[in-house]
């Protein structure tokens, strides 16, 4: 098990009689960058805090590098955490902020100085070491918070929405920096976010959570191209996948708005007449395909490189189309839409993907 960074086994968390994490099993390879995503309240932060030891585990087991740490004190788990709100010690200088954890472990002074200097160099904050957090900008504070994690030389880095308080531009540059940091340090990193751009760009493995359950775990490509269920399909991707009500007709056909559409499945487990969900990503729809799905354009958003068309099908179901180039389309126009058959997703009534 040496190559397992973090292992969660049937991890549960309840507050009183309310269970919020329902038996999560997860094996995170050593050195992987794992991102927990999900809507707010899905338990992603709670799960992270349980790994950190800040929340008690009601049931189940957590192991870090093969060592069981379920009831071990946070400081002894070999983890370091970066908080959304930075959580710097405002009364200490940046240097003392970085050194505090090592001082608590009674580390040798020379070692502390060396590690603080190294971390400061990695994050390019050497010139800030004698300032206090109050004198720093948001991005600088976040660097210090990351620095405080680095000096601990942890097995696992935990990030709890670290970029949410930064402005859009800074967020992009810090995102790149965190990716660089992961490449340089090579530690296991677990990162919680609700921003799927961060998730897609940073992750080796994305873990999609909903209501305290893992919906799917896999590479960004897997969760995007091969979602296990309608929730993951709708959550990953922006704008979200169009999930349309349709009826299974059998023999590779579904009925959508009164027309038969090709569905790329054999239909095992479905009987003709079953309700299904037909999933089409906005970016895969081709405007002007002959014999395609008919839709009327309601609203048009121009974004420069691309345009989003908010359309209605003939039966009134809403549909978003990403339109890159081609003849001008105006609101009120009727367009026909096509989609490659390997980009069509069918989900059964329970939301599970039919392959």
């Amino acid at each position, binding site marked *: 098990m040496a190559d397992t960074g973090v292992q969660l086994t049937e991890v549960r968390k309840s507050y009183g009689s309310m269970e919020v994490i329902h038996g999560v099993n997860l094996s995170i390879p050593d050195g992987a960058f794992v991102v927990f995503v999900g809507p707010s309240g899905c338990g992603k932060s709670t799960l992270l805090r349980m790994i*950190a*030891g*800040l929340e008690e585990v009601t049931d189940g087991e957590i192991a870090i590098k093969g060592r069981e740490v379920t009831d071990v*004190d*946070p*400081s*002894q788990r070999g*983890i*370091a*955490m970066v*908080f*959304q*709100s*930075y*959580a*710097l*010690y*405002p*009364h200490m200088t940046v240097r003392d902020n970085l050194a*505090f*954890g090592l001082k*608590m*472990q009674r580390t040798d002074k020379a070692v502390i100085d060396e590690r603080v200097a190294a971390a400061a160099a990695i994050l390019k904050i050497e010139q800030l070491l004698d300032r*206090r*957090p*109050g*004198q*720093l900008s*948001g991005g600088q*504070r976040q660097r210090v918070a990351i620095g*405080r994690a680095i000096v*601990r030389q942890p097995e696992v880095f935990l990030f709890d929405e670290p970029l949410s*308080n930064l402005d859009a531009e800074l967020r992009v540059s810090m995102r790149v920096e965190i990716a660089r940091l992961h490449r340089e340090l090579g530690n296991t990193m677990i990162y919680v976010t609700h921003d799927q751009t961060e998730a897609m760009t940073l992750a080796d493995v994305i873990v999609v959570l909903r209501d305290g359950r893992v919906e799917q775990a896999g590479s960004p490509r897997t969760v995007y191209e091969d979602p296990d269920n309608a929730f993951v399909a709708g959550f990953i991707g922006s704008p979200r996948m169009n999930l349309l009500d349709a009826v299974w007709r059998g023999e590779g056909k579904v009925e959508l708005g009164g027309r038969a559409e090709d569905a790329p499945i054999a239909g095992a487990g479905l009987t003709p007449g079953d309700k299904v969900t037909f999933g089409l990503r906005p970016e895969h729809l081709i405007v002007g395909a002959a014999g395609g799905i008919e839709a009327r354009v309601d609203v048009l958003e121009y974004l420069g490189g691309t345009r989003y068309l908010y359309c209605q099908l003939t039966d009134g179901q809403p549909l978003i189309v990403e339109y890159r180039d081609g003849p001008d389309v105006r609101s009120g126009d009727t367009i026909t839409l096509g989609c490659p058959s390997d980009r069509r997703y069918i989900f059964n009534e329970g939301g599970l993907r039919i392959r």
Partner: protein
Amino acid sequence: MTTKKEARARRALFGAGSYHGTGILLAVFFLAPFVITILSSFRHGTEARLPPIPPWPTNGFSLDAYRSLDSFGAGVWQHTLNSAAVAIGTALLTVIVSLLAGYGFSRYRFMFKNALFVLIIATLMIPFQSILTPLFIILAKLGLNNSLIGLTLVYVTLQLPFSVFMMRNAFDAVPKEIEEAARIDGARDLRLLVRVLLPLVLPGIVTVAIFAFLNSWNEFLAALVLLSDNSKFTLPILISAVRAGRLGAIDWGAVQAGVTVMSVPCLFVFLLLQRYYMRGLMAGAVK
């Protein structure tokens, strides 16, 4: 254009003038009693008995009033020391107890937490004069009547509800993440409290200390009732004795000197601590 510029300059001057003028006027109103008291405490013995106009010494400075003040009770030094011991003791004890209680009420979950907290706050509604008799009896049973330690304990008790409330709010204002970061860094319990949280709630501590010090320094009734030994009296009792006069004659000079002796330490305590009292230390911690 020049006229516009001039008009703007005139308006700015008027604005600044009225702003500072009002400030100076208010400051004069607040400072006048202190200045008059301190100046008139330096008048000659005979002059001190005259109507206090003008309030400053006309026949040169003299310390007669202070000498006369010293002749009351067990000497002004003894009473000042008593008062200082009680006030400093009260401030220290109040800070220690309310710091721990505030932390507990803010961070721990335990049974009847809110009920207990409301109970503590509710004691603020009881005028302490009404429980003076039971307090006296309790102290007598404990053998602490007529002792400065007993008086200090009574003051701490009276000071605690407000202080616990104050410290709970101070701890509530400290973001949980800072504490969690410290826990990950390996600081626990007392070290966490002293190394990380104490500096963050310092404004609260200072506020509690200032209030505890000033209230116990100035308190009169409980001291009068609970102390019976002349040498143990605190300053307010001394001043009331001076104010009552000897053989029907009141030494106004001594009264003024007493008031001066009493107000100077308060002034120092406040000036010393006010910069912490004012400062919001939380800037830069989060966000």
